């Protein structure tokens, strides 16, 4: 793939590559070193700023907020998948009164920023008298509406990428339109689209962090809260570092699953993959 852009290096190119490698290593080490040096100089590594992370109470709280993040992620992921399938079926329905609203629903909720959706839920609805909207509900419903619409497009693209004969054969043996969708097209589409679907789940995981802006008590919210503790030297940078490590860890586990399934799938399924990836 990318190896076609350059020839197999000869003696001259090898020397140049050694030179380029050295320069890259120096630049990267320089940048990382500079950042670490600034951290060190401004006292981000002092024991005082890290002491708070040694308290059992704080460590327990970190486990709790990882739990709340995972809870929002799990509920939102299941909800988005269900909504995505429903919307994809709606869009593929024969009846115009069903497919048009589903089309507008997906277009609309993909165009509104997720944070604004959450704000509408959390600040907007209570202001007109809707009661019982907790930050958790606002985060989860916002995530489901947005990612459900995105996943609907993914499922639709997956179904569109299947050979036409699949649907025709299903109809020919007397299945109804809905039965063909449910029992023939969807299972194949999900398989073809699994890497994209899991990539979208990683996006959901990352977007739970938006909840910190509407006071949902998750990892980032707690990290910034710790950062405001003056008596421990306001460990903002250490707090964010800990949060970053947790997020990257969680997302890498999910991405690892994605890569593994992609590898598993690509060796078995020979369906043309439609392009559908949405940047979070």
């Amino acid at each position, binding site marked *: 793939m990318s190896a076609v852009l350059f020839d197999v290096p000869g003696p001259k190119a090898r020397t140049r590559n050694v030179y380029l490698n050295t320069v890259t*290593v120096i630049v990267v080490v320089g940048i990382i070193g500079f950042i670490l040096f*600034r951290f060190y*100089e401004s006292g981000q590594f002092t024991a005082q700023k890290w002491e708070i992370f040694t308290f059992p109470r704080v460590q327990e709280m970190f486990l709790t907020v990882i739990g709340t993040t995972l809870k929002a992620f799990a509920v939102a992921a299941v909800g988005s998948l269900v909504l995505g399938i429903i919307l994809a079926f709606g869009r593929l329905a024969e009846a115009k009164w069903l497919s048009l609203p589903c089309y507008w629903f997906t277009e609309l909720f993909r165009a509104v920023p997720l*944070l604004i959706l959450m704000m*509408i839920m959390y*600040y907007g609805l209570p202001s007109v008298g809707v009661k019982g909207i907790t930050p958790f509900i606002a985060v989860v419903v916002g995530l489901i509406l947005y990612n459900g619409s995105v996943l609907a497009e993914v499922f639709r693209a997956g179904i569109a990428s299947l050979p036409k004969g699949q649907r025709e054969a299903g109809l020919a043996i007397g299945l109804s339109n809905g039965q063909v969708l449910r029992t023939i097209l969807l299972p194949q589409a999900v398989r073809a689209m699994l890497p994209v679907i899991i990539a979208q789940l990683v996006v959901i995981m990352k977007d739970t962090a938006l909840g910190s*802006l509407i006071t949902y008590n998750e990892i980032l919210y707690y990290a910034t809260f710790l950062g405001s503790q003056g008596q421990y030297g306001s460990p*903002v940078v250490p707090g964010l570092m800990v949060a970053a490590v947790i997020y*990257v860890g969680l997302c*890498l586990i999910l991405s690892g699953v994605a890569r593994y399934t992609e590898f598993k799938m690509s060796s078995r399924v020979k369906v043309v993959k439609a392009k559908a990836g949405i940047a979070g």
Partner: protein
Amino acid sequence: MNVLLDNSQLFIDGFKNTGILFIFSAFFSLILGTIVAGMRVSPAPAMRAAGTFYVNSVRNTPLTLILAFFALGYPKLGLPEISFMNAAIVGLSLYTATYVSEAIRSGINTVSVGQSEAARAIGLPFMQTLTLIVLPQAFRSVVPPLFSVFIALLKNTTVAAGFSVLEAGSIRATLSDLGEPLLPGLLWVALIFVLLVLGILSPLQRYLEKKWKVAR
């Protein structure tokens, strides 16, 4: 309607700053993303590794955390002070650049092998193969995914509202201080975003896609 008209200046200022955030971040992320994509296909292994490390680590970090770092963490490092606006532009550019680089890299892979083989056959070195032959063709096939990245960027600018940047996402906080009704105000913000995305960016995306379509 009243909320919009009574506070028109607030909405205009907010969306003006959203536009500034969007344009500067799009510009910088396009440049940085192209460089990173070039690094990831370069002959030097260290450059490839550096590019891959950058993309994998930043793409798996929530944007909210990156912006929190630049807004809350950066001032503690004793470096030259930058405004919250510029901090948000830096954060958004660094984050979006990873998506741009992935889009461009997949575009590079769609350019047929014969193109770069021909370039190498006439003796062009890597940089010229990349910048004269492959990238110009890759950019064309990359227009639709790149536009999706920029649409996501436009929506992501609202996250900066959480970090003291006055823009579309922070209109709510100001309305709240003024005691204006929140739901209509927020719905107006949402509607303007829908108009920007579905009314301007998506049609532009389809137009450019059609105009620059390459027959392969």
